[in-house]
């Protein structure tokens, strides 16, 4: 909300208040001044002068040498290129030491050998436009049409300086989206009297109801509609003071009638509209929902096809305006308009918002209605507009207006207790302070002992209950009165993370200590991601956003892999040559589409690693180490698998004891890598963390150690290259040797001492008994049994 202080000063006298004090005061009571804009702060020593003589420059075709009378600055010689100035004109001249609006300083100098003691100025140099002074909008030197005294500062003559506050108004205070609204706050804050704008006007004896009929067919969407007839309209430019104020608000001046509607919108906060009476067929205004397919062309010459959600202001036959949004082209004010009907209405804010969004048509009025306009402001707005019409001589106002109002204009009454307010605040605000503050804010306030009755001003629709009053009181009393207490009257509770939350943090810590870096990636991914990873989406029930930021961010992910791999790729492209990264986040799994209930959000862990020291086994080791460190109480089984995005001979899944897949891991397939544009091996894993975390409950019971010595036997085995370690371990286990304490693979060899189709694997077997020292024969016997089992799968002693 822009607030020129010169305008604010009309309603509350702030001439004795510094800009800083005002800004700080507004800030402390809830209105942050986001920017203090000083208009034409620089302009100085641009003064009026009269051109006495104008002659051609002796050395330059396009330059002239003028002698001017600049009053107390004396007779000055000015060299100029201005063609439009003539002898006898009064023009602005920036004299030696002057500053222009853009900060440029003007000094005496020579132009083509002729001395010049200043520079003639146009509107731009002075920092003004047509709204300030006729002729200031052009790009040539401004010629005054007033007979100004010479040598006078232009900044004072045209009153060009001002300070504008850009104030941030919170959504609960639409009543402060106007100069008057801010003035009310400032008046309460500084305890200065509020001066209401002039609402009085002379009327003629024509009645609005004799000229026009108004009917509101949908009082829900239009709770109040006021219409007033005005005749003898003389369309002309509005006065400069009004144009200037509108200019400071960022609004272009159009003509006196339109400018008055805009002026009232900014001053009072009431959007207004003016219809050309001639164009209202049948002398009727009907406020109704549009018929489906009905059309309107708005003032900006855009055509809209409407439906019954849109409220329109119609005459007997057709829509004349999109209610609250924009008037129709046909009924707009024209240069020859002689009679008008003013509209000041209240429209339901969400309807305006929806329609404005749907039609993609916005205006200052719709923006204002979207924030909320209370019903009582309509009447003030109408009176103010009529007052301006009459007092500026724009037209003749009828002696009555039509007011179709369906809402109560009764003020809300809040009956409460001072003690309740003080208890909520936690401090004792003195009774007289409460009364002063509420009265200053236009509440009618009665205090009787502990009882407090507050009658709420109509424009304060946000105030409903005692906490609202508490807020009014404390924001004016000052939040610095609030002291710090630490739950002094509360029960003690036990805080912290629960078991699962602790475990998740443990998981992150484990990964971190093993060189993994945590990343956070977006929860939405692209259909392209699924295509790149060759993941069939047919049965995935992908959850799509209705309004994504783009197609690439449109799907709630069902897998973390594409996003985490993308993070790795970004790093590879940035020449971060080595990396271990992980993310623990949700995937979003829907039973069916469209969603009727909330989908499952399943916590998932994704790990990606790359670089010269990484391979399948560093990844496998990290996963198993992690699961073990979290005290997973079940067994996991690793098994070969096929995944479309994984290297087919370097990938695996982990199955839980029920045979459910709980993780996959492997090298990313070269085909996928190529699609992603990377040429380095990536090792990836995605773990169904949720499936594991319910079993992080392995108990620890200490085993006693055997008193007897252990016996170790090393077996160098030779087997087919395809034979796996897993198969050999299974074979060894199948011998069911109770006293076999451990089996450890310590060497794998292929090479010249062995057939090319074979490999050698060396295991260390450790035997131990809790009951006795094992005899050599016994151990030999164990080894024989084991070798028999190995023999059965084609594994022999080397």
């Amino acid at each position, binding site marked *: 909300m822009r607030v020129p202080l010169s305008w604010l000063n009309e309603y509350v006298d702030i001439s004795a208040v510094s800009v800083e004090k005002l800004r700080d005061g507004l*800030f*402390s009571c*809830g209105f942050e001044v986001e920017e203090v804009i000083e208009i034409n702060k620089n302009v100085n020593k641009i003064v009026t002068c009269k051109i006495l003589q104008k002659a051609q420059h002796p050395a330059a075709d396009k330059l002239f040498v003028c002698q001017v009378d600049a009053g107390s600055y004396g007779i000055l010689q000015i060299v100029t290129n201005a063609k439009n100035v003539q002898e006898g004109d009064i023009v602005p001249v920036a004299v030696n030491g002057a500053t222009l609006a853009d900060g440029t300083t003007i000094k005496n100098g020579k132009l083509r050998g002729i001395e010049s003691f200043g520079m003639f100025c146009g509107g731009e140099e002075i920092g003004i436009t047509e709204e300030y002074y006729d002729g200031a909008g052009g790009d040539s030197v401004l010629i005054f049409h007033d007979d100004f005294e010479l040598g006078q500062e232009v900044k004072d003559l045209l009153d060009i300086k001002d300070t504008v506050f850009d104030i941030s108004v*919170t*959504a609960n205070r639409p009543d402060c989206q106007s100069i008057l609204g801010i003035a009310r706050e400032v008046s309460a804050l500084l305890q200065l009297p509020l001066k209401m704008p002039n609402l009085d006007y002379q009327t003629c004896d024509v009645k609005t109801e004799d000229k026009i009929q108004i009917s509101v067919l949908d009082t829900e969407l239009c709770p109040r509609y006021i219409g007033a007839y005005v005749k003898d309209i003389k369309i002309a430019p509005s006065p400069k003071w009004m144009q200037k104020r509108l200019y400071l608000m960022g609004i272009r001046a159009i003509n006196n009638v339109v400018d008055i509607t805009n002026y009232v919108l900014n001053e009072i906060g009431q959007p207004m509209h003016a219809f050309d009476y001639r164009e209202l067929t049948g002398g009727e205004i009907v406020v109704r929902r549009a018929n489906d397919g009905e059309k309107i062309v708005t003032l900006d010459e855009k055509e809209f096809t409407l439906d019954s959600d849109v409220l329109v202001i119609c005459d007997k036959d057709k829509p004349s305006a999109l209610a609250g949004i924009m008037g129709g082209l046909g009924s707009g004010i024209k240069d020859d308009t002689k009679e008008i009907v003013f509209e000041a209405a209240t429209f*339901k*804010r*969400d309807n305006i*918002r929806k329609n404005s969004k749907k039609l993609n048509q916005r205006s200052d009025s719709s923006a204002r209605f*979207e*924030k909320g306009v209370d019903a009582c402001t309509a009447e003030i707005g109408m009176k103010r507009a009529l007052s301006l019409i009459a007092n500026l001589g724009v037209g003749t106002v009828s002696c009555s207006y039509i007011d179709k109002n369906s809402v109560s204009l009764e003020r809300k009454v809040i009956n409460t207790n001072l003690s309740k307010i003080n*208890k*909520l*605040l*936690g*401090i004792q605000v003195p009774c007289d302070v409460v009364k002063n503050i509420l009265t200053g804010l236009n509440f009618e306030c009665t205090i009787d002992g502990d009882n407090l009755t507050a009658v709420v001003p109509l424009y304060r629709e946000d105030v409903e*209950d005692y*906490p609202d009053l*508490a807020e009014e009181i*404390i*924001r004016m009393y000052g*939040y610095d009165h*609030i*002291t*710090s207490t*630490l*739950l002094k*009257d*509360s029960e003690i*509770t036990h*805080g*912290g*993370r*629960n078991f699962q939350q602790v475990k998740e943090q443990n998981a992150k810590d484990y*990964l*971190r*200590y*093993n060189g993994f*870096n*945590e990343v*956070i*990636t*977006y*929860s939405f991914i692209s259909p392209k991601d699924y295509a790149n990873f060759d993941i069939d989406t047919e049965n995935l029930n992908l959850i799509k*956003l*209705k*309004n*994504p930021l783009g197609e690439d*961010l449109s799907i*709630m992910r069902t897998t973390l892999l594409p996003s985490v791999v993308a993070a790795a790729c*970004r790093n590879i492209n940035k020449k971060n040559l080595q*990396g*271990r990264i992980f993310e623990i*986040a*949700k995937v*979003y799994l829907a039973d069916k589409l*469209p*969603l009727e209930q*909330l989908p499952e*959000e399943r916590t998932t862990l994704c790990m990606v690693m790359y670089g010269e020291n990484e391979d399948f086994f560093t990844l496998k080791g990290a996963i198993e180490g992690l699961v073990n460190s979290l005290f997973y109480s079940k067994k996991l089984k690793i098994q070969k698998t096929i995944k479309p995005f994984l290297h087919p001979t370097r990938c695996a899944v982990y199955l839980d004891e029920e045979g459910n897949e709980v993780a996959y891991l492997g090298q990313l397939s070269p085909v996928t890598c190529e699609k992603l544009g990377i040429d380095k091996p990536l090792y990836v894993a995605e773990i169904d963390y949720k499936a594991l975390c319910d079993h992080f409950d392995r108990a620890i019971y200490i085993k006693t150690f055997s008193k007897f010595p252990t016996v170790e036997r090393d077996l160098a085995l030779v087997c087919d290259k395809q034979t796996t370690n897993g198969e050999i371990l299974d074979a060894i286990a199948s011998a069911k040797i109770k006293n076999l304490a451990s089996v450890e693979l310590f060497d794998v060899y292929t090479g010249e001492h062995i057939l090319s189709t074979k490999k050698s694997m060396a295991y260390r077997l450790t035997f131990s008994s809790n009951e006795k020292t094992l005899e050599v024969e016994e151990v030999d016997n164990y080894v024989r049994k084991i070798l028999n089992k190995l023999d059965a799968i084609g594994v022999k002693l080397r």
Partner: protein
Amino acid sequence: MSKKISEILQEVQEKLTCADTLKILSDIKVDFLGRNGVVTGLLKGMRDLAPEERPLLGQQVNTLRAQIEQLIANREEVVKKYELQRKYETEAIDITLPGKQNELGTLHPITLVKNDLIDAFSGLGFVVYEGPEIETDKTNFQMLNIPEDHPARDMQDTFYITDSILLRTHTSPGQVHVMTTTKPPIKVMCPGRTYRSDDDATHSPIFHQIEGLVVDKNLSLCDLKGTLEEILKHIFGKDIKTRLRPSYFPFTEPSVEVDVSCFECGGKGCKLCKGTGWIEVLGAGMVNRNVLKNCGIDPDVYTGYAFGIGLERIAMLKYHIPDIRMFFDDDLRFVKQFK
């Protein structure tokens, strides 16, 4: 004889003086005290002596042997020190070479800030509740006193999945879940991902918040201030001051913004605080009576306060992170700095 003995002693002493390794020392020992050594050689001359002279010689030789042993032992101690010194010198290292350690990974700055806050709040008796990210219009808005026509909906550009299912725009629905399932006293913090359709240097479509909620009898704005002051001191240092100023959230009344005095300049005014001496860190307020009612809690018996902290904001302030997009770019050169 005595002369001979003193000569031997003299020779031993000379040799020992030059002996600087244990090997030379051991050779000297063999040369003089060994089976074929000089001292043993003296005893061999005993045969030529008269029997009554023999004990004297024996005594003299034994004394000599003891003296030599003592001399060698003394020297040995010195030589051992030399040897150790030489060993130390050959084993000398350059202590400024880099240490060997496992490459340490990092936690994301958002996790660091979140953990920091969880630790601080845990100590005050807050439990952690993590609610869903996909919410209904009812829990994300309506129950929080944001009806459909409410302008506050414009403040939050919402991602929708269906007309009534959406991505939560704040962690505040956590309040609703907790209040509808738990009896007061309640002290809970709800950390998590939140979503708004915004994307620029200061807004990310995904960001993180921690919602805090306390519901009990007799709570006041002073308790809110005290709690937040405690937490903010934990995060930004014990010297900071806090300031409340009026604000607006539909689910709290009164609502406040909470500022901390600038921890960079101590409140004098600097670039970080844009010269104001204060930094806006979070929004808070007393739980709106309508919200309590909506969640089945009697607002005439219980009061509550709530606050929402933006984790990116805290992390940006704390770690001097200039652009919110850095959190989600996952550049290891960024990520690896958080050790």
